[in-house]
């Protein structure tokens, strides 16, 4: 392939986003590790972990924006794919604990010993290998999304009906994972992680490394999304979003397009979840809670759906607000504020932050752009 697609996918906004993300990935560890802790410029390790968490949320928001913003698939169960990726990572980290657990069983995680399980269940096999776990992080959410999407899209389940069954999916998984005999630690989930790839997880260096890796994953996810939405495939997605029947009459297999993008999106959400777990140190069934998935959709709406960068920004803004308000006297009112924010954005800023900005710029720059296009008819491509 020529360099042409790269020019197409890296417009000014995309380059700016990648530069900001790169700067963030360098600056935060630098201010944490190099600046002495007494200095005003010092970034605490707590903040490093917090930002790392936000980056993971950003990747989840990106995956939702890809399907909702471009293909019009409103998934209210994307938290499930995030949590499945998280559990796959958690299983690896549990196997890494080895004899350092309370019961010092070299094979069985503590909760299995506690439940008197004689041996490791079959589906826990292989998770002592990082490569295998990494594969499962992508494969398990991807496979679930593929099977779910196969049935849903072939039966032409769309709109609010699809949203409802995605909610049901994540709720069902939550109930399942809450059960002890499901084999994933019941309501306590998986925690007490010691090390990852042989490195101690509690060190400052590890916190910073995880932040940087999360930034790299977000950048990779962003580039994949950009490559997709700027291709003809992306144009077909938008066509499906705006008029599914029309797209079908044009001869496009709508269900194949939806299935591809939905599965890819679930894989991205899985990676986000896998990076999230070592940074928060725990994964439990509450990650499957329907409310989590809805919250993630709100991030995208706030930042601006169908913009990609907006999704990441929305995840940052809303989660920073959440951290800020839930740690003060306003804590009991956070959910009201979140609901209010969603209503306010829907009514006053339906395009979201980035979407509104782009729209404003589009209107002000229209005359200029029109002149450019007449001068070179292919400039729009």
């Amino acid at each position, binding site marked *: *392939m*020529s360099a*042409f*697609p790269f020019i197409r996918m890296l417009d000014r906004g995309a380059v700016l986003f990648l530069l900001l993300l790169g700067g963030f990935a360098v600056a935060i560890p630098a201010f944490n590790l190099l600046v002495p802790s007494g200095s005003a410029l010092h970034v605490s390790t707590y903040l490093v972990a917090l930002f790392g968490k936000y980056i993971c949320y950003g990747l989840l928001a990106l995956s939702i924006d890809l399907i909702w913003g471009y293909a019009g698939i409103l998934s209210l169960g994307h938290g499930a794919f995030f949590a499945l990726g998280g559990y796959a990572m958690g299983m690896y980290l549990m196997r890494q604990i080895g004899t350092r657990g309370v019961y010092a069983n070299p094979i069985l995680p503590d909760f299995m010993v506690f439940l008197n399980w004689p041996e490791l269940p079959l589906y826990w096999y292989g998770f002592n290998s990082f490569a295998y776990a990494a594969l499962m992080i992508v494969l398990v959410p991807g496979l679930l999304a593929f099977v779910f999407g196969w049935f849903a899209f072939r039966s032409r389940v769309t709109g609010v009906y699809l949203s409802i069954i995605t909610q049901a999916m994540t709720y069902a998984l939550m109930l399942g994972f809450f059960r002890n005999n499901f084999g994933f630690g019941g309501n306590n989930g998986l925690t007490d992680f010691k090390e990852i790839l042989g490195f101690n997880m509690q060190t400052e260096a590890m916190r910073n490394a995880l932040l940087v890796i999360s930034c790299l994953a977000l950048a990779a996810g962003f580039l994949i999304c950009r490559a*997709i939405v700027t*291709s*003809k*495939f992306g*144009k*077909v997605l*938008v*066509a499906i*979003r*705006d*008029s599914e*029947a*029309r*797209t*079908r*009459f*044009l*001869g*496009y*297999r709508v269900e*194949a*397009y939806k299935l*591809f993008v939905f599965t890819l999106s679930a894989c991205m959400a899985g990676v986000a979840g896998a990076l999230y777990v070592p940074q928060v140190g725990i994964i439990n069934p509450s990650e499957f809670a329907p409310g989590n998935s809805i919250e993630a959709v709100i991030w995208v709406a706030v930042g601006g759906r169908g913009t990609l960068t907006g999704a990441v920004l929305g995840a940052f803004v809303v989660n920073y607000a959440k951290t800020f308000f839930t740690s003060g006297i306003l804590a009991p009112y956070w959910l009201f504020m979140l609901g209010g924010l969603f209503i306010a954005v829907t009514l006053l800023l339906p395009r979201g932050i980035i979407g509104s900005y782009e729209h404003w710029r589009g209107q002000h720059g229209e005359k200029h752009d*029109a002149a450019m*296009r007449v001068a070179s*008819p*292919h*400039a*729009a*491509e």
Partner: protein
Amino acid sequence: MDKHTTSALLYLDGITVSFDGFKALNELSFVIEPGEMRAIIGPNGAGKTTMMDVVTGKTRPEAGEVYFEEGAYDLAKLDETQIAELGIGRKFQKPTVFDMHTVEDNLLLALKSDRGVRATLLWQSSVPQEKRIDELLEVIRLKALRARVAGSLSHGQKQWLEIGMLLAQEPKLLLVDEPVAGMTDAETLQTAELLREINRDKTVIVVEHDMAFVRELGVKVTCLHEGAVLAEGSIDQVSANERVVEVYLGR
């Protein structure tokens, strides 16, 4: 049963479709020869749109046969995508272009090409495609507006864009549903001219209420009523038919 033998491009025989007991199509039969342009008229509820739904695979007939290309394809057994791939293009009553896409991108999406996921992911613009889009823009008279978002076009321009999208698919048969509804007189005349131009190398079925427009087209007319053919012939013959006057044109 043997494969159907007919010289017709589109062959409908005894098509029946009912919704909750109401017969939208009642043993409808007619044939369209290759290269023909046919106007279909009839009062509301006569089954014009349902007929198009059957031909494009949106609705399955309960009884009857519908064949394409000299009986080679049984349309009742295929779905929308397969029928579109065979070369039947449809223009909807309400202009349905992709509002968020530019005029150019609308045509690009419609252009005859591999519709698969992999093909569109790896797609790159090519000179022949660009040229084809330029030609189409010329035909539908929207060259100056190529970079405009389709949602910002006027009603008439949207109808033309949609006709352009139909042409881009290089169909063998075009189904055009009420192309001049809501158009000005000048636009109506231009649209008739456009359709005649298209008919030079394509078969066209036009559903329309506007009698002045049908007269302007100057083609064979089929009048539907209660899901069946009431009259067929030239516009003068059909409009002289007593029953047509009674149920449709009014005395």
